[in-house]
């Protein structure tokens, strides 16, 4: 091991940051897609069975600790012969947990669109699906954006959990380096800074999008 400590540290954190970003982006995409689709179903249909299933999914994933669910996905599935890589398990796990959060965010966004908007859409002869797509969706997304931004930031922080299933992200790499060098304060301090940079970047981009979408 001829490398200097600063080189090791920056290497570990940089490589970790890449995995963190990958896990966060992947799970955010899954969470948003799942949340949007299920919220649309909740708003558009009165099918009790569909509502029940979605409710079950939301309640189950919201009331099981994330770590438990990640272990179940990674170790539990492995035990019955389905072996996921730690990164895939991390993305799938956080994505499914996030989907449950996003369903409610999007649904309350859609619900906050005033009734009159839908009445006007119905009165001109738009079908419910078209009215949803053209009138409710664009307005509801705008209303949901701040909450989605908050969720994205908390998701980014929650990616540190997946260190527990050995996904080589920032915290996992940091801890390994701590075990090798015992530079605890310095390493975890630098890890904190990496998270701070990432979350600030997310917060700023959300603000940017919000400003872009603001109704003039």
């Amino acid at each position, binding site marked *: 091991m001829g490398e200097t400590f600063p080189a090791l540290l920056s290497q570990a954190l940089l490589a970790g940051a890449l995995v963190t970003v990958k896990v966060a982006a992947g799970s955010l995409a899954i969470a948003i897609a799942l949340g949007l689709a299920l919220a649309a179903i909740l708003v558009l249909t009165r099918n009790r069975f569909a509502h029940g299933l979605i409710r079950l999914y939301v309640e189950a994933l919201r009331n099981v600790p994330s770590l438990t669910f990640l272990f179940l996905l990674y170790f539990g599935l492995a035990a019955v012969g389905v072996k996921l890589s730690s990164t895939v398990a991390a993305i799938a796990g956080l994505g499914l947990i996030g989907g449950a959060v996003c369903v409610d965010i999007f649904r309350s966004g859609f619900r906050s669109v*005033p009734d*009159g*908007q839908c*009445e*006007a*859409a*119905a*009165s*001109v*002869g*738009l*079908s*419910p*699906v*078209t009215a949803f797509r*053209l*009138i409710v969706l*664009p*307005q509801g997304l*705008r209303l949901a954006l701040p909450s989605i931004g908050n969720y994205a930031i908390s998701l980014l922080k929650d990616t540190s959990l997946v260190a527990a299933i050995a996904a080589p992200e920032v915290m996992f790499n940091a801890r390994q380096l701590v075990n090798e060098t015992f530079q605890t304060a310095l390493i975890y301090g630098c890890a904190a800074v990496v998270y701070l940079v990432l979350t600030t970047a997310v917060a700023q981009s959300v603000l940017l999008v919000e400003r872009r979408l603001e*109704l*003039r």
Partner: protein
Amino acid sequence: MSNDILLEVENLSKSFGSLKVLNSVSFSLRRGERLALIGPSGSGKSTCLRAINYLEPPSEGEIRLDGRVIGRRSDGKQMSDREMAPQRAEIGMVFQHFHLWPHLTVRDNVALQPRKVRGVKDADANKLALTLLSKVHLAHKADEAPQRLSGGQQQRVAIARALAQQPKVLLFDEPTSALDPELVSEVLNVIKELAAEGRAMVLVTHEIAFAREVADRIIFMDGGRIIEEGDAKTVLDHPTSPRLRQFLASLTLGENAHG
């Protein structure tokens, strides 16, 4: 059933729990006729209007437009919103609070229906929107966001949006009640111009002078029932029921009080 009749409302009733807000209301509208529904708040006139396009599905009764039953299948069951959409497209509705779509420009608010419901090509829909916006004297606002317009202008855009449907009948639900007093006349003038074209319309309004001027016929409602109906001037000048006399007197008092 004469071919002269455009819209028929038969024994319309609506209950919210034990509260009967509409009690067996019947009337009809001839082609080109202007009908005003007047009455005190809570008399059921708005509910009645909203029942015509099933935004407020009636509990009982039947509505026919051009002889076709609205909102119910041949087996009498209520249609889904999807089934009802083509019927609603034939009925233009102007709301008290406009309900323009804030994420679309004024032009797109008007052009959306032709484009998405009637399959009109984009260019033609835009042209139609501009024509209708000039009709309500707002062509110069086509590219604005609706919320940058005054209430009176927003309501005129809403009227253009309803006209873009090429509806068989226009329904106005208290179109000036949400407006500042100085903005009322610009909206009433546009409605008068439409009336002069011989469009069939049903108006729910508090503007009695306007109703007298525009409507051929007036229906006075109270407590969910039709109390009195007839030729506009007769009903307003020679009310027979004590309830209508009282209502008209209270309005005059109000006007005097406001100077």
